[in-house]
């Protein structure tokens, strides 16, 4: 807990986010960590190794996040994922459309950043369309539809929407006890499934990609929820999470931060704008991926193939921007950071992202046969 000047903590928070994201970008590039690729390998060739990498990251993140919470280092209920408002239609529609978008756009938000770092100019276009669509969904035209239609379908739960809170409410025992039990059971089951595969165990990059990604998310919780936590901001006399765009405890997510990066560039002379946790994380992934690509001489410029390829990537970025904001996160934001809090909405979003991506790949294959 900090009682220091929030302004002085901001560079620490942004710097910590950048460093962690840098590691994620470099390791993601090396290990080919890709959540869309995980779905593609499964749907198109029957390989679950990269899906296991994603599940390993989730398991590590669950154990780390729960451990930090139970040790009193962070309070996961201060994140955006554990609110009692269960906006189920937003998770379903947003998750599905994000899955469609990441398939059309050659990867999710994090993969887009990794590709930008390797010289893929298509991903630069995806980044811009994703960022603009995300901003329009936060505060613009798409936002009116999100709030006026999708978020109307809400169930207000008696407690937070995380499984430990729900189990404690309906079955007794404390939330902390249920968190310890459920984190152990869910993460244990995931780890058992992941390492039951001989082909997964045979390639060290699978373990490296999964463990590092999971640890980066845990580190993100620590940076935002502990280093950047101020019990009483002297300016507002309220608690604060320094240098966050949401005002809540954050870990890694790659939709809204892309919008805020564009906003920061467009409002450069506005001195109230600072490099936040999210902006630093987006820049960090690009830098880490670029550093790895340059060090291994794999950096190469890539462009669009034709008009259809361009249109699909523009549409993909737009759908990811809308879907990611609507569902409160992407394959990393909801798929790992949110999942690590055992929030029901994160699990639902994860399922519908995979479903949207798989359905799009089936459609793409069908189109080839016409």
């Amino acid at each position: 807990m900090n009682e220091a000047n929030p302004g002085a903590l901001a560079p620490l928070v942004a710097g910590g986010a950048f460093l962690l994201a840098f590691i994620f970008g470099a390791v993601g590039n090396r290990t080919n960590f890709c959540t869309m690729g995980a779905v593609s390998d499964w749907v198109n060739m029957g390989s679950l190794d990269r899906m296991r990498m994603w599940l390993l990251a989730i398991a590590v993140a669950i154990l780390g996040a729960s451990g930090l919470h139970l040790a009193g280092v962070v309070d996961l209920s201060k994140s955006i994922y554990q609110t009692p408002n269960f906006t189920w239609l937003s998770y379903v529609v947003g998750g599905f459309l994000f899955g469609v978008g990441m398939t059309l756009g050659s990867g999710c938000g994090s993969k887009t950043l990794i590709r930008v770092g390797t010289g893929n100019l298509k991903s630069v276009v995806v980044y811009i369309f994703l960022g603009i669509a995300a901003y329009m969904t936060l505060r613009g035209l798409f936002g009116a539809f999100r709030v006026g239609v999708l978020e109307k379908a809400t169930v207000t739960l008696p407690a937070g929407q995380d499984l430990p809170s729900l189990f404690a409410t309906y079955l007794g025992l404390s939330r902390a006890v249920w968190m310890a039990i459920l984190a152990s059971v869910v993460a244990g089951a995931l780890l058992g499934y992941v390492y039951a595969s001989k082909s997964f165990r045979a390639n060290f990059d699978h373990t490296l990609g999964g463990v590092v990604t999971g640890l980066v998310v845990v580190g993100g919780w620590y940076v935002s929820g502990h280093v950047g936590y101020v019990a009483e901001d002297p300016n507002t006399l309220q608690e604060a999470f320094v240098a966050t765009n949401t005002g809540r405890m954050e870990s890694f997510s790659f939709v809204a931060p892309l919008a805020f990066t564009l906003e920061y560039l467009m409002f450069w002379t506005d001195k109230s704008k600072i490099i936040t946790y999210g902006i630093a994380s987006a820049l960090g992934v690009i830098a880490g991926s670029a550093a790895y690509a340059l060090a291994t001489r794999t950096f190469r410029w890539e462009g669009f193939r034709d008009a259809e390829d361009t249109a699909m990537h523009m549409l993909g970025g737009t759908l990811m921007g809308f879907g990611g904001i609507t569902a409160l996160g992407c394959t990393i934001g909801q798929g790992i950071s949110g999942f690590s809090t055992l929030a029901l909405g994160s699990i639902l979003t994860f399922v519908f992202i995979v479903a949207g991506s798989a359905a799009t790949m089936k459609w793409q294959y069908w189109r080839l046969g016409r």
Partner: protein
Amino acid sequence: MDFDKELDARGLNCPLPILRTKKALTDMQSGQVLKIVATDPGSLKDFQAFSRQTGNELLSHAEANREFVFFMKRK
């Protein structure tokens, strides 16, 4: 190397090179060879995994002038 069919996957990123390869192989006879030209940096790992999983043998792969060339034998 002799081949029976060529697939141009240049400028395409995952999952399209794999999807187009899968479709091309379904239209070929067992033992025929498909030549694939791709530019996606991730294509080498993708085609190695595709070969391992589907049993279509990856006869060779090479990189030149920022392009990857694969020869895959239909199982």
